[in-house]
Structures are given as structure tokens and as C-alpha cells.
């Protein structure tokens, strides 16, 4: 097949579309890791949970609360799902993760791995593994935009734009505001921050909550594109882990940029040699590890 400009651009656009999901998810992981030093294996499962909140809110919640005509709209789901999942996250942090801080950080990874299995298992029991369609996509986002080289669905364009806004907004808050400076200080020296009269445990809970709320937000964005399925998160999370290893976990900006870039690289690979597209990120990871073990944006500890 010829390497036409049109082909490359189309696939790279689609790659960017995947890349924003990598970016939001790895951003959430980085935020959590920054303060809690925990790799949140449940991130994929909570991303999936976000999508299901949107789906069930649209299809099932009405009859359940005795209002059969009530459907949670897409726009409402964009707020509700992160709130619900964020709350779930805070409960997880308060009841379970907080007991493990005094032990090896690996236990946090193992605990969240167990949680991921539970959440995924429960949904596998009640829902179709191959996915249910989410039909609440708003009318205004139907149809396609002609980008010159391709017809690009409006909805996917919206996803790219809003994701970038959320990512850079989060970066701004953490790196450029007072609230962010507390967070960063808490990472470096929790004792000192405590001495300034800041409630560190609360800050930790809220950080975990925010990290997983980002995952849920991505889940809602993904719902109309990919069908909502119990395994959507587990397919995603491993790739996102590789993204995080490549970017280096400490850096907020690093995780965003790496996510976007790798999405596009993946898209480009689909044009050059499609079968390699699912491994290219992992191959890049190997190369990065050989040259710069701490990751592209990471600091050696």
C-alpha cells in the first residue's frame, strides 16, 4: 500500500484520538503516584466504571428510582460519573489504601490489582463482555467534519479538544497555583506540610479521588466511541502503564506529552506496518529503558 499523505494524516488523527485517552489516564496515575507513591492498578477498572455510570444513568437509573422517563444525559454524565467514581475512590483510599502506607509500596499495587479484578469481575457477571452501545451521544456532536484529508466525526474532535483542556488545566493547577504547591510540597515532605497546619490525610484522599475521577471522565468520553464493556479498562491499562514508564512517573507534563505522542506514533505505525501497532509502544519502552532508565521526563531517585 502506498504511503499517501492522506492516509498518514488520517491514521495520525485517529492516533491522537487514542492518545488523549492515554494522556488523561497516565495523568491520573501520575497525580496519584506523586502523592501516594502507589501505582493504581485499579485505574483501568475505574475508567470502565465511569463509562458504566454514564451507560446505566442513561438506560437504567430512571426506572430504578421510579421515574421511567428519566435519562441521565451525556452532558450530565460528564460531571456525575467523575463525582461518583471519585467518591468510590475516596472510600477505597480511606478504608484500604491508607492502611498500607507504612508497608512496602508494592502492597498498594497488589491491593489495587485485587480491586481491579473485583470491579471487572462484577461487571462481567452482569454485562455483555463484548460491550453494550451507549446511545446518548448528543445530537449536536453527530456527523462529521471535513478536515480536507478525511471526514472526521465531530464527536471525536470534541473528545480531543476537551481532553486537552482538562489535561492542561490539571497541569496548571498543580504546577502554577498555591493549592498545587501544597500538593507538591506534600510529595516532598509530608511532615513539614503537616507542620503548616494542612490536613495531609484529607489531601491524600482528595488527590486519589481526583486521580480516579479523571479516569471516570475519560470513561464517559470513550463510551460513545468504543462500546461500554467490562474489559475496556483492562485492555487499556497495560498500554497506559507502558506510557507511564516511558514518560517517567514523577512528571505531570511528561505524562501528558508522552500519552499524546505515543498515540500518534501508534497511529503512524498502522500505516507503515499495521501488525506492529499494538507493540510499538512497548518496543519504545524497551529502548527508553536502555537509554534513560528513569523515563523521558523522570528524575533518577
Amino acid at each position, binding site marked *: 500500500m502506498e504511503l499517501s499523505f492522506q492516509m498518514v494524516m488520517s491514521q495520525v488523527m485517529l492516533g491522537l484520538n487514542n492518545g488523549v485517552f492515554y494522556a488523561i489516564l497516565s495523568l491520573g496515575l501520575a497525580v496519584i503516584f506523586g502523592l501516594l*507513591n502507589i*501505582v493504581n492498578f485499579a485505574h483501568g477498572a475505574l475508567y470502565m466504571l465511569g463509562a458504566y455510570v454514564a451507560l446505566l444513568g442513561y438506560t437504567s437509573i430512571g426506572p430504578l428510582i421510579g421515574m421511567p422517563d428519566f435519562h441521565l444525559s451525556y452532558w450530565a454524565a460528564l460531571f456525575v460519573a467523575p463525582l461518583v467514581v471519585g467518591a468510590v475512590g475516596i472510600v477505597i483510599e480511606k478504608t*484500604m489504601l491508607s*492502611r*498500607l502506607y507504612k*508497608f*512496602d*509500596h*508494592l*502492597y498498594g*499495587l*497488589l*491491593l489495587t*490489582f*485485587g*480491586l*481491579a*479484578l*473485583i*470491579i*471487572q*469481575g*462484577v461487571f*462481567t*457477571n452482569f454485562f455483555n463482555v463484548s460491550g453494550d452501545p451507549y446511545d446518548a451521544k448528543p445530537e449536536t456532536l453527530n456527523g462529521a467534519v471535513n478536515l480536507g484529508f478525511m471526514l472526521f466525526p465531530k464527536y471525536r474532535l470534541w473528545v480531543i479538544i476537551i481532553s486537552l483542556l482538562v489535561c492542561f488545566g490539571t497541569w496548571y493547577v498543580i504546577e502554577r497555583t498555591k493549592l498545587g504547591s501544597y500538593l507538591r510540597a506534600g510529595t516532598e515532605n509530608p511532615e513539614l506540610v503537616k507542620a503548616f497546619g494542612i490536613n495531609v490525610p484529607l489531601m491524600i484522599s482528595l488527590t486519589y479521588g481526583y486521580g480516579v475521577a479523571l479516569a471516570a471522565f475519560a470513561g464517559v468520553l470513550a463510551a460513545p466511541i468504543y462500546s461500554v464493556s467490562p474489559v475496556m479498562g483492562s485492555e487499556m491499562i*497495560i498500554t497506559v*502503564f*507502558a506510557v*507511564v*514508564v516511558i514518560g517517567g*512517573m514523577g512528571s505531570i507534563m511528561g505524562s501528558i506529552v508522552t500519552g499524546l505522542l505515543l498515540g500518534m506514533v501508534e497511529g503512524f505505525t498502522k500505516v507503515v506496518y499495521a*501488525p506492529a501497532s*499494538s*507493540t510499538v509502544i*512497548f*518496543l519504545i*519502552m*524497551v529502548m527508553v*529503558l*536502555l537509554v534513560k*532508565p528513569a523515563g523521558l521526563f523522570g528524575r533518577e531517585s
Partner: protein
Amino acid sequence: MNKILWIILIVLGLVAPFIVYPVFMMKLLCFALFASAFNLLLGYTGLLSFGHAAFFGGASYITGQLVKISGLTPELGILGGTLFAALLGYIVGSLAIRRQGIYFAMVTLALAQIVYFIALKAPFTGGEDGLQGIPRGKLLGMIDLGHVYTVGGSPVALNLYYFVFALFCFGFWIIYRTINSPFGQVLKAIRENEPRAVSLGYKVERFKLMAFVISAALSGMAGSMKSLVFQLASLTDVSWHTSGEVVLMTLLGGVGTVLGPLAGAFTVVTLQSELSSVGSWITVIIGVTFVICVLLFRRGLVGELGRVLKRSL
């Protein structure tokens, strides 16, 4: 005391195929060896690999390929699978030990994922179908491992069972010897205090890599055995769920105990077969077990028992 325990276990192993479903027993032996090999790394070196399925599953494909396509005898097939896993372990280990702790876990996970994708895409693995119909073959070209004896009306592949049991004992013996050798003592020293081991002049990276390779090779042997038992090498064996499962077995049984992985493998495999009717609730149950282990039960079954008996098991 210890000797009696070993004798009881060996006798149980010898009579097992007459009492329980032999395929179940053989599956158990494969996973018990796998978990023991994994424990060598986690329990005695302090390295959490989240990608051990790559060795387990990778070796099962190689064995399948050697026995089915190249027509080698089963013992050569298993040898080939084990050597492959050792080589793969060397590559993955060299890369992964450049990082520590959580990073180590994630790097092994991601590298194992490459092996998964190769298994999915390469022409010789059968993709989603897996490598099917692997013959059990003739041991040393003489003893037919597929031969089925009728025991109380049920077909039992006794030859295969004792072959698998012997291999398990051999693998387990290697692990036991490794743990109790001077080499094992150094590994434990690294686990307890790596900077101190460095300052004592040990080339820590070399020791870690050695442990990784041994662990990978024996995991591969377990995978090779499994491919003969089930006559199939499939994607499940290389997927990260399998990597997680072996972590659970070890954690549940007791990290850093000799018998822990056996107890863990026994519990998990029994759960899986007893509860196969509940479908995917099994995933939930395994997840819950994980969470309970991590929160309340970090010593595992054997570790807790050892604490009660005030001795190391």
C-alpha cells in the same frame, strides 16, 4: 519432623491419581512449581515481577512447537521450553533490574505484554486459537505418555502423571537447594538490605539477574509441563491475568516460605475447579482473596501457621 512431612507429601503425590481427578492434580503440580519458582524471586530476592506469564506461557508454546511440529520427544520439548524461558528471562531480567520496586514490576509487566502480542500475532502460535492438539508423545522414544489406564472405570494417563510429578519434584528440589545455598543467603541479604549487600562487596545486579533467570527457567518448565498435560498452548498462559494469578498464589500461601507457594497453588486451583460453575464470579473471589491477603494476611497461610508454630516452614 521435616523429613516426615516431606515423606507424607511425596506419598500423597504418588497415590493422588488414584484418588482425585488426575488432570486436576497435574494442573496443580504445574502451578505449584510455577508459584515456587516465582517465590524464589519475590520471597527470597524481594523482586516483584508482574510478567512471569511470559516465561510460563512462552515456554508452553515452544514445547508445543517442538513436540508437535518438529516431532521431538517430550523430554526434549520440555528442555527446549525451559531453555527458551531461561534465555527470555535473561533478556527481560537484564532490562528490568535497571529499575527497582514498583518500576521493576511495571517494566516486567510491559515486557511480558510484548511476548503476549508476539504470541497473538506470530504465525507459529495459532493466534487466538492457540497451538492445539499437542501430542504427548513417547518419553525417551519408549514410554507412551498418552497411554491411558482404566482405574475404577475412569481413564487415567498414569505415565504422564508420574512424568509430571517427577519433573515437579526435580524443579522443587532445585529451588530448595538454591534457597539453602550460600547463593540463597546472598539473595536474602539483598532482600533485607540492598545497600548493605552492595557495601559488603556483592555484585548485587549479577545476583539478582541469576535469581531472575533461574526463576524464569523453572516457570518455563512448569509451562512446558502444562502444554503436555492440556495438549494446548494458549494466550491465557501468557496473559497478565496469569502473571497476577501466580502473585496471588504466592502471596496467599506465604511469601518467602518454602511450602507457601504449594499451599497457595492448591487453594487457588481448587477454588477455580470447585467454583467453575459460578462463571466469572471466580474473578471476583480471586480479587477479594487478593484484597484480604494484602490487608490482613500479609504472611499468607503458611507464614501464619509458621508464626503459630513458632518455626519456619
